[in-house]
């Protein structure tokens, strides 16, 4: 992969980070802010994984296994326990 693509990706990541901080500053509705930030986070992760870690030039099988395992297991873990976090607050005893 040409050096140019690395440094173009670098620029993209910096601007994305600045955009996220700017979005964080403005008072957006909570859910929209959350969605925007998470989406930007995944895009940045996609850039780093795809370009810097050459996932894009690997076989599709490897790329799918890596991304689906990490994102799938993390999502299963978080969405499996998040309802109980809210329930712990709702039924809080003290």
């Amino acid at each position: 992969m040409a050096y140019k693509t690395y440094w173009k990706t670098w620029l993209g990541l910096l601007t994305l980070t600045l955009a996220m901080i700017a979005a964080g500053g403005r008072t957006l509705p909570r859910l929209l802010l959350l969605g925007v930030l998470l989406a930007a986070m995944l895009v940045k992760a996609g850039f780093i994984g795809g370009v810097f870690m050459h996932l894009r030039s690997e076989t599709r099988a490897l790329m799918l296994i890596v991304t689906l395992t990490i994102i799938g297991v993390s999502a299963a873990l978080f969405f499996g326990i998040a309802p109980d976090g809210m329930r712990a607050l709702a039924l809080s005893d003290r």
Partner: protein
Amino acid sequence: MQTSNAPTKQSQREGRVLAVVVWLIGMAIVGIGSRRWLPPLASEHGAGIDSMLNYLMITVGALVLSGHLVVGWFLWRFGRGQPVSFRLASWRIERRWSLVPVVLLAVVAEGGVLALGLPVWAKIYGEPPAGSLTVEVTGEQFAWNVRYAGADGKFGRTLPKRITLDNPLGLDSSDPASADDIIALNEIRVPVNRPVRIRLRSKDVLHSFYLPYLRVKQDAVPGMNIELWFVPTRTGTFELACAELCGLGHYEMRGLLFVLLEEQFQHWLKEQKNG
């Protein structure tokens, strides 16, 4: 070349013995299982749980028995050392025979959960009916503190830092509602055929509020206020045990649930108020 793998007369006899043992196991499971192991029921929602258990014991019992009989029959029939009669199943036969367990389990297990299990589950964890008596039970390392709201129907505030030997719940005397709260240790008195709501709390570690006869089991989590409800259907004294490992005295956290007639319960309640 394969010296120790040739079919010998001796190994054939062992095959027969194993077949018989597998048959006996299958029959033992169903035979022992047919005795009445569940403690006699004393609650309304328990009927749903018992029907679930009995449904499973019958259907799964049948599956287990038939499985053992089939395995025993295979061992008996194909253990005689005769040459291999059926070698390779075609993809179609494999798929067809594998469909048998898929359909059976889908109907018995998944069907059991969807048809019987979840309605019972939804009712147990649903809203308690109106007009239910509320009792607060707080587990602590190795005892159950029981509290009734008293005449005002409101529970007084409890503060952990106020806990002393004679004030195990840390009742805050400055709160007016706590004046008429009735406190008891390891004894719960409830009227029969009237829904009882238990507010389950814990002072220190995990405990589990377990009434075997009433099919009630719910963990008491420190820092959480968990509600459960049941309707006792039989008067009498029922033992309360702890079902979540809570330390050295886990095995002796014994409480008693007295299910009284309505007027006996009202009489006891009046006694506590002016007592």
